[in-house]
């Protein structure tokens, strides 16, 4: 992750109203110091518009779709509903932090293998959510539990059966019985 761009010059929607603050956070394992001129900036906007990490997507911007899912201190959150200014000292993991050295993370590889996407808009959120699911709840392959555990991540293309199959494959319950024909 050495080639992350430096934060863009910050632009405030209301420069007169905002006092500058500086937050330090660990982003995909790398410590970053980020100046913030405006407390309104969400984690999602910080990632996408100021740090050049556009993997997390903005679907609804109000916590309903899961396209912006990232891990905050190891747990899934909707980045659109977290204010960046609250994150001093936090650790954030995004889809850009997975894999490395040209290799895919096993979840990424399983999503490819199972065609667990169509347009791909929800996919970074789905994969980060799946990563959080495995960390939070362990490796129970019960499809119903996985469906419930992934219920915050909507896929408008309807790839849910293949998503569940991909997650089960990573857990080691790999069969394609969940797959649509």
């Amino acid at each position, binding site marked *: 992750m050495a080639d992350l761009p430096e934060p863009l010059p910050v632009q405030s929607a209301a420069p007169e109203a*905002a006092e500058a603050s500086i937050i330090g956070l660990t982003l995909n394992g790398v410590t970053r110091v980020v100046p913030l001129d405006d407390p309104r900036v969400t984690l999602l906007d910080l990632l996408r518009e100021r740090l050049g990490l556009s993997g997390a997507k903005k679907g609804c911007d109000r916590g309903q779709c899961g396209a912006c899912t990232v891990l905050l201190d190891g747990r899934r959150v909707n980045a659109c*509903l977290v204010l960046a200014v609250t994150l001093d000292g936090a650790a954030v993991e995004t889809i850009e932090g997975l894999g490395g050295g040209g290799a895919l993370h096993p979840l990424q590889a399983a999503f490819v293998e199972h065609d667990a996407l169509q347009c791909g808009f929800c996919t970074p959120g789905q994969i980060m959510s799946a990563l959080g699911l495995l960390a939070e709840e362990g490796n129970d392959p019960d499809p119903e539990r996985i469906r419930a555990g992934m219920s915050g991540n909507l896929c408008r293309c309807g790839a849910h059966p293949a998503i569940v199959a991909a997650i089960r494959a990573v857990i080691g319950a790999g069969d394609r019985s969940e797959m649509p024909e």
Partner: protein
Amino acid sequence: MKAFDYLKPDAVPAAVGALAANPDAKLLAGGMTLLPTMKQRLAEPAALIDLAGIAGLKGITLDGDTLTIGAMTPHAEVAASATVAAAIPALAALAGGIGDPAVRNRGTIGGSLANCDPSADYPAAVLGLGATVITDRREIAADDFFLGLFETALEADELITAVRFPRPLRAGYAKFKSPASRYALVGVFVAETVAGVRVAVTGAAASVFRAPAFEAALAADFTPGAVAGLSVDAADLNADIHAEASYRAHLVTVMAKRAVAAALE
């Protein structure tokens, strides 16, 4: 979102002081309701007072038959707590059914109660168990806390610090989820306590309410069949694109039966 100042006090008195000094400020807990509301400009606080920096607002303790949950405890922690599961399993199950995992990782019990959404789950447990809401200045019995649509007994500068639940003999919760939001279209919490049976209904009306006829029937006979023939008056219930009032009334009876069945499991 309109511009606001951000404050992060490290103690309850400082937070209450900041709130009292600035009537247009709001407390920030998980932000799961406040931030979407601000994005829609339905709320335009001049300042946000973040409660995340205050030690002691988070955590779960069991002392005898009293379970205390700190206001800043996220739903996921309540859902996964072995202490809650042992003392009041219905409460752990309720917390585990709120929204989705990302919402449960951030949303807090204090924020849910202060917000008093007509479809929220926690109000049903708090009223159904006869819990006590503890604030920076007093203790409020559940029967006195929920006043109406998004309206509680909290004063403008009052801060919830914790909620105290008495351990029931048995309790159960059943909700009919809106398939999109997973909020309760109707949710019913049933508890048999040493002080009697309590039945609290959420999602159906402007605010959570008790169902006295259901309570009396269950006091005599704590079985699903005891409430099967009862119903609440649809005239007082919500009607919206999700459900007519008469359907909500029907769901109250069905969810009450299921909640009793869950309590008997």
